[in-house]
């Protein structure tokens, strides 16, 4: 095994181009487990810790450009306002020690269906900024996950950053596990209200071969909210609408039975989380809407 230690992003891209089999390591919270357990013996480890740019973020007008190695701890501390869904998801990642090292770039690189960040990214709307010596490109988050632990990266590409849309409304995140800390999701659900476009977006984790959106459920809910004038009148969501939304979210799952839970449990739990996160976000939206009206 060789240990490559590029001092800059350009050097890292050159190293990845020269050694496409090199495994990038940043926080190490996935890669080192595989090495410790002898599940993986990569020819090259490509250490990204020396590249300070990867640990920085920029808050723009529309989106946050989040460096691939920004640890979850920093997201929780600094980006709760801009990225509330991702901040909530970050809080559910493992333990303080792991959150101090792990970041969204690693979640995307591993592309496990159980990665905690994915449902929040899907719900908020995001693009993955990847780069190689050939150039840079933005991959829409919906096209990023291509299979179980597979993603749309080419062999010579590295993840530079994620561009996540700044929240324009309430966001929520929910995760089912056996305890609060140190848990791989049995399943997880992210939901974001986007009042500017009058849409709702979702993300489901650990309940299909890849993280997925519940698109049929989103379409149903968008139409129902529009039809009922909910965005304007700020009424509570009709229980039948919430139930139908929950059922459609459960229907968007394609889960398996495994040690963490059964497929039917996952489907059920996703439905419950969908209904709850919708209620929480909508109550929050109504509160804001009512206040705005009051002022006006």
């Amino acid at each position, binding site marked *: *095994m*060789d*240990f490559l*230690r590029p001092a800059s992003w350009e050097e890292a891209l050159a190293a990845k181009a020269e050694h496409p089999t090199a495994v990038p*390591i940043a*926080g*190490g*919270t996935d*890669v*080192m*487990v595989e*090495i*410790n*357990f002898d599940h993986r*013996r*990569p020819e090259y*480890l490509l*250490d990204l*810790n020396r590249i300070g740019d990867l640990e920085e973020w920029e808050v723009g007008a529309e989106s946050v450009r989040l460096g691939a190695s920004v640890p979850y701890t920093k997201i929780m501390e600094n980006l709760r306002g801009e990225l509330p869904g991702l901040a909530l998801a970050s809080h559910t990642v*493992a*333990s*303080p*020690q*792991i959150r*101090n*090292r792990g970041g969204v770039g690693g979640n995307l690189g591993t592309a496990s269906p159980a990665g905690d960040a994915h449902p929040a990214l899907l719900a908020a709307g995001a693009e993955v900024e990847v780069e190689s010596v050939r150039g840079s490109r933005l991959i829409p988050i919906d096209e990023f996950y291509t299979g179980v632990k597979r993603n749309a990266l080419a062999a010579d590409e590295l993840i530079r950053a994620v561009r996540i849309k700044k929240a324009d409304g309430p966001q929520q995140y929910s995760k089912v596990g056996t305890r*609060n*800390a*140190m848990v791989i999701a049995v399943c997880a659900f992210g939901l974001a209200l986007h009042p500017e476009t009058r849409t709702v977006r979702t993300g489901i984790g650990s309940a299909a071969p890849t993280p997925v959106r519940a698109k049929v459920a989103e379409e149903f809910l968008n139409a129902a909210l529009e039809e009922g004038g909910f965005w304007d009148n700020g009424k509570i969501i009709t229980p039948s609408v919430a139930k139908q939304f929950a059922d459609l979210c459960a229907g968007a799952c394609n889960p398996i039975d495994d040690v963490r839970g059964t497929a039917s449990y996952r489907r059920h739990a996703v439905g419950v989380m969908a209904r709850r996160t919708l209620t929480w976000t909508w109550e929050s939206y109504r509160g804001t809407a009512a206040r705005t009206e009051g002022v006006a």
Partner: protein
Amino acid sequence: MRVSFTVNGRPQEADDVWEGESLLYVLRERLGLPGSKNACEQGECGSCTVRLDGVPVCSCLVAAGQVEGREVVTVEGLADFAKQRAERGGCASGACGTSLQDAQGWAAQGQDSQTGEGAELSPVQQAFIDAGAVQCGFCTPGLLVAADEMLERNPNPSDADIREALSGNLCRCTGYETIMDAVRLAAARQGEVV
């Protein structure tokens, strides 16, 4: 490969390090510092917790090559680390930190293994002994490093803060209650000093 880094305030070198080796392995097997414990090797238990550039991490999940040029504090250096922090003296003399020899020979028993009397202990270590928070002791080093770091950041932690800060450290003996007592005790004593 060779890895040069700072351990407990002193520069150290480890040779013949395998590229896939963890920081934990380097500390235990190459530098002779077995205080950081090797248990789950997957970041679940926190027994191997050390400070890396001040931040608590699982040393089993840090590749050895990643610590080149960086600073690590292990449980063996915790007493000196805490002392220097309390004195806020920086390190003008250049003789701060804990030498490898001292760290290798570090033991909590001092003259009295029950009370720790006579040994150089950090406040959090003394609190663990006083509160009876140590049973088999395997999780203790990781808990000490994590608890000490939390008290540095948050001198007046609520119980929820303590539980959150220690949520990455498993203990199978104590049921955590005496550990909670120990951290509360350390926080209270810290408050008295200030």
